[in-house]
């Protein structure tokens, strides 16, 4: 992160100023409730959203990520149970979000049984879900066919697509397909060309929400936490007044604002990962027994017309 990055205070559910996000980013999560206010997103943790008064929010959607169904290692022996917790919390929200975005790693090993279990549980929310794949979702022998058969209807290439909802343009990108030696996440020329034409007809005042599994901004390339051609994708978004980029993959909340672009990563519903550089390698991080729920979460986004930023609320499963 360069020092020129403009960060603005964004209070998470713990009330911590996000300027301090480098200190607090070793979180995983249940989900984020996203509010788009004036085209900028703001996140509210699920706990606070549950506690919040039920003031009608014009337009709210939800982000969950990295459910890794099938994961059973010591960091979380039952990833399905923590996903269940997240879904139960979502079902209890006072205002039902318009839909849900899942930013990938639905499954741990792309097994049919893992996708089945995830679908059954996430289906309990009764919400429409928009998926993009994580690298763990493309591990079938045909390297992604299982994902596309299940989630790829109407998408292009490895599973990218766009849609419009309440005047907001949403773009789901795939940066985990056909990765090459030595590289980071990758969108590839075909997808970049599609993105350019997809955005071409939009007025600059259209709020745009872009979501993909691996962060499109460079968080920590040493651990593969970035996208090689992410900057090229973002160059197409510079002219828009409000851009929100939602990612997963790193299993902790990180946020930054650069010009009109707000970047946000969601917690996992399965297991936390260490903060960048604080361990020999990324990977499942074991936390003290009873503390796991503090590291897992869901995010909600409220989209409120006006001049304020879009509100993102990160909610841990517990704590």
């Amino acid at each position: 992160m360069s020092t020129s990055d403009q960060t603005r205070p964004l209070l998470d559910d713990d009330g911590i100023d996000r300027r301090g996000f480098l200190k607090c980013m070793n979180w995983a999560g249940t989900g984020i409730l996203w509010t788009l206010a004036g085209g900028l997103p703001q996140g509210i943790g699920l706990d606070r959203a549950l506690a919040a008064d039920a003031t009608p929010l014009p337009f709210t959607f939800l982000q969950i990520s990295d459910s890794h169904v099938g994961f059973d290692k010591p960091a979380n022996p039952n990833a399905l149970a923590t996903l269940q917790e997240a879904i139960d919390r979502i079902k209890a929200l006072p205002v039902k979000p318009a839909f849900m975005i899942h930013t990938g790693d639905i499954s741990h090993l792309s097994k049919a049984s893992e996708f089945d279990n995830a679908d059954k549980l996430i289906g309990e929310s009764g919400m429409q879900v928009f998926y993009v794949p994580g690298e763990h979702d493309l591990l079938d022998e045909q390297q992604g066919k299982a994902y596309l058969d299940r989630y790829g209807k109407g998408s292009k290439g490895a599973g990218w697509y766009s849609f419009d909802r309440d005047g907001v343009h949403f773009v789901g990108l795939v940066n985990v397909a056909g990765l090459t030696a030595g590289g980071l996440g990758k969108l590839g020329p075909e997808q970049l060309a599609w993105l350019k034409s997809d955005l071409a007809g939009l007025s600059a005042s259209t709020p745009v929400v872009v979501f993909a599994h691996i962060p499109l901004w460079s968080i920590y390339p040493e651990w593969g936490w970035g996208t090689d051609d992410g900057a090229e994708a973002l160059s197409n978004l510079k002219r828009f007044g409000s851009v929100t980029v939602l990612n997963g993959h790193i299993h902790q909340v990180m946020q930054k604002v650069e010009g009109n672009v707000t970047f946000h990563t969601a917690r996992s519903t399965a297991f936390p990962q260490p903060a960048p550089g604080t361990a020999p390698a990324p990977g499942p991080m074991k936390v003290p027994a009873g503390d796991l729920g503090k590291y897992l979460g869901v995010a909600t986004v409220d989209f409120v017309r006006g001049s304020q930023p879009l509100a993102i609320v990160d909610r841990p499963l517990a704590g």
Partner: protein
Amino acid sequence: MSGPASQLPGPPGGHSPANRPSPTQHRAHLVAAGLLALSWLAAAPEASAAGPTATVQIENFTFTPAQLSIEAGTTVTWINHDDIPHLVAASDKAFRSPPLDTDESFSFTFSTPGTFDYFCALHPRMTGTIQVTAKAK
């Protein structure tokens, strides 16, 4: 959403399988993998139908050794010790393991001399090289 039915990009253009040895896979649980590796290491090359063997450990998102020199005919086994899966893939697509979960392994016999670069298809910053020299006469 709208648009044509989704399509996977086709598999990359065919490489000739003519000179390619076929991969053998060993997917075993902790104990089995350990025993297998031990027995391979212990086996005298001339006594083993599979020829000489070598092992690459996968730990902390790193292949060790990252550079390995072997003689043609050697079977290399990769063992994953991390709590997250890895997937060993040759850059030229000569071999590709299934996803290797914790304590699972994958073996491949290198029968032709050359330099074989590989990486983890899940974490492509993980890279390694197998240098295969001609079999000693």
